[in-house]
């Protein structure tokens, strides 16, 4: 698990000696992403600042037959940004917003720009980058592109791929290439769009041109409270069936509500079985009319309380609660496993019922947050890592939940990606021919197999198991 001296020399030449780390303690920091259940320590970490430096690092790794993995903020939740003995290309120093063109509604950014920082920069022009993952205060645009990230507001605005106009990349072969540009709505086959969501296994993004959308001039945020989960999920169907496309339509269940309130006190009703956070944006007159309809539909479907945020602060607090709902679980449980699956919207009630049942089977508590309008569920599985089979039961519980999603016609993931986490479940979703077609493409475009290996597609014996804790030699300083 050490890099060859000649590779270290090449890496130092590429990015400067002070921007190459090979020490145990420094590399251990990169042994997991947001999903700490998978751990693998890289042998080196480099911190480039430009496309040319990334290309030089890639060339050095290819020549030394050493795996390399791009990394943004490491908030990924599928074990995608880790490397067992390879080189992590940490892009946090490539954090510049290079250009903002309000008249043409685009911005050019380096991949290490933090998601919410970009919108902070564009807001003075009345514009924003629409994808808003709950991790937006930390995650990077490069990571968003690699994972095709979503978020609460992607119900109306679409996910990252709908907002990427162009990219500059270093391909797995080391060649620098650009795809797309500042042009909107270019039609025809688009390699750049295929790259979005390819989980950093085909290319490393070094520059992104993103579409900016107008900041909504008028917003209404509402909170509906339910004594039964089914009332909340039925309300979701009723709202969409009424021809209303809210900006966001989010579901939070009792366990997560209680965790949020214990931690942040945003004003969620702790006795409720579930709440729906509903946001409308756009034309003021239209919104006002739709808000009345939404309230009536929620009450018809069993909402015991319904309120509108009366101020920007109140709205912010509600969103704070939603965006920190998974993290708040950390306050009430020693460990938790945030999952991600999708079901057809009409199966939301069914999948939640199944999740509670599956949790019970494994003697685990499961809280739920859903991008309900998208049928995208995030069960949060609470477990104790200090019990002998705590993590194993959490993994098995997760696999059962995802299998239930597939049986309902859904998907293994709506936004967190496959990574290492769900790699071995892919044959449950796709046929051997489907997977072979994907593999031909991935292997053809990543011929040395060194860029982010062992992710996305099941690999059999070729890739080792990296579940569990990576242990440091005793006495190591960290």
């Amino acid at each position, binding site marked *: 698990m050490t890099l060859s001296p000649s590779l270290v020399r090449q890496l130092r030449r590429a990015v400067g000696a002070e921007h190459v780390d090979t020490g145990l303690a420094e590399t251990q920091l990169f042994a997991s992403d947001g999903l700490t259940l998978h751990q693998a320590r890289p042998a080196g970490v480099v911190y480039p600042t430009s496309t040319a430096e990334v290309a030089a690092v890639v060339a050095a790794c290819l020549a030394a037959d050493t795996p390399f993995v791009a990394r943004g903020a490491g908030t990924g939740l599928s074990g995608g940004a880790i490397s067992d003995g390879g080189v992590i290309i940490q892009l946090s120093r490539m954090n510049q917003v290079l250009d903002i063109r309000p*008249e*043409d509604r685009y911005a050019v950014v380096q991949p290490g720009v933090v998601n919410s920082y970009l919108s902070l920069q564009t807001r003075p022009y*009345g514009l924003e980058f629409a994808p808003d993952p709950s991790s937006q205060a930390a995650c990077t645009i490069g990571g968003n592109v690699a994972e*095709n990230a*979503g978020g609460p507001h992607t119900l109306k605005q679409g*996910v990252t791929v*709908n907002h990427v106009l*162009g990219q500059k990349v270093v391909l797995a072969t080391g060649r620098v*290439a*650009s*795809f*797309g*540009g500042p*042009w*909107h*709505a270019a*039609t*025809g*086959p*688009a*390699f*750049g*769009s*295929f790259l979005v*969501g390819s989980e950093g296994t085909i290319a490393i993004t070094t520059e992104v041109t993103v579409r900016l959308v107008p*900041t*909504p*001039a*008028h917003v209404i945020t509402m909170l509906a409270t339910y004594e039964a989960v089914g009332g909340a999920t039925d309300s979701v169907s009723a709202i969409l*069936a009424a*021809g*209303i496309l809210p900006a966001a339509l989010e579901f939070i269940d009792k366990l997560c509500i209680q965790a949020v309130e214990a931690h942040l006190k945003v004003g969620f009703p702790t006795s409720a079985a579930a709440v729906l956070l509903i946001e409308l944006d*756009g*034309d*003021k007159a*239209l919104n006002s009319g739709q808000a009345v309809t939404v309230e009536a539909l929620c009450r018809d479907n069993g909402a015991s309380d319904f309120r509108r945020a009366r101020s920007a602060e109140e709205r912010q607090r509600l969103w704070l609660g939603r965006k920190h709902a998974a993290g708040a679980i950390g306050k009430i449980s020693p460990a938790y496993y945030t999952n991600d699956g*999708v*079901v*057809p*919207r*009409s199966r939301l009630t069914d999948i939640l019922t199944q999740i509670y049942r599956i949790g019970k089977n494994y003697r685990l508590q499961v809280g739920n947050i859903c991008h309900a309008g*998208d049928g995208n569920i995030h069960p949060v599985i609470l477990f104790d890592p200090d019990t002998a089979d705590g993590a194993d039961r959490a993994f098995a519980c997760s696999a059962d939940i995802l299998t239930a999603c597939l049986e309902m*016609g*859904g*998907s293994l*993931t*709506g936004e*967190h*990606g*496959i990574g290492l986490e769900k790699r071995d479940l892919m044959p449950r*979703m*796709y*046929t051997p*021919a*489907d997977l072979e*077609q*994907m593999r*031909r*493409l991935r292997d053809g*475009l990543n011929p040395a197999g060194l860029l982010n290996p062992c992710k996305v597609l099941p690999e059999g014996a070729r890739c080792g198991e990296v579940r569990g804790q990576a242990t440091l030699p005793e006495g190591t300083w960290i």
Partner: protein
Amino acid sequence: MTSVATRPGSGPVIQPADRQQVAEGVRQARQTGVSLGAPAADQSWDFSALTAEVLLNPPDMILTAETGHTLAHLKSTAAASGLWLPLDSCHPGPLSLAQYLAEDWSLSWLSQTYGTLRDWVMELSAINDRGEPVRSGARVVKNVAGYHLAPLYIGARHALGPVVEVSLRLIPSPAGLQRVRWSASNPNPLLDIWLQSAQAQRPEGNSNPWVALRLSGAGDRWSLEGLTQLSPDIAKSWADATTRSGPATVDRCAQPADEPALEGRPLLSAHCLPSRLRAVIAAAAEQHLPLVAYPGVGALIVHDGGRGESVQDRALTAWGAVLAAQEGWVRPLAGATLPAGLPRRPDDNAAQLAEVKSILDPDGLFGPMPEL
């Protein structure tokens, strides 16, 4: 069994009755060494019989259809359930999904708000070069499981393999739409209306008043028309206030209206930045090139105005020089042969797609990739 018909003046056309026959056709072609596809292949496809029942469970807001169905049929199927497929085309004449997808005809007056076809395809099923069905994506409105191959297949004229089925995301049909239309003898006042609507003059509380918008014309007959969701009185007063070319026509429409069809044969689509579109349109007007422009996305389609001879290579080349100076580029449509001087897409897309083609169709079974 796959039936083979012959169209007058062209090579054999394969008309599979179902997906199994598409796969069988590919396997046969593989054995006999003929190439399949359009237009330069030995044989071409006619998917009009691929019309198994459209699958739509309205609450799921996802529609699955074989590619023989027409776009119009899919839109009306969605509309019957109060849903909308916000894709359109100015292509003259009805299009099957296979044709729509083969060329990617989805640049339309809806693009500024709803993007293009690749923004709506959630699952795509094709036949690979081994004659096996392959699928990527899922029949849900959000999914990132595995590699999403749809962006490679859309617009590739089935050159990576015939596309036999897609699942499309739908949204609720927008309520209270108005159709607004202005006319003028030159494009400038119409572009002013668009600019004002996009900036200072937008009605209070509305960030983007347009659901759809296009500017079209040639010579001294131009019009700007679109769909807006504003309440009727706001739409009327705003339209009147923003126009210098006389009051607008405002009509209520119960359902989103389709984009008017081109009155000619499309030759190319062109892309520049929205802020450069005025200069590009002015140059087209000077050369009497008939066009449809989509101001919000800085794109336009040049057509032949219904008379092939009205568009001279000389005029296209002169206009192309202005487009190039404005950092724009063109994409030939429907196999049109364009003069060499027109600027082409300045990125590495075509080279990389050639690589994809060599990976997924190493024997060139499916005919060449279209020129991009």
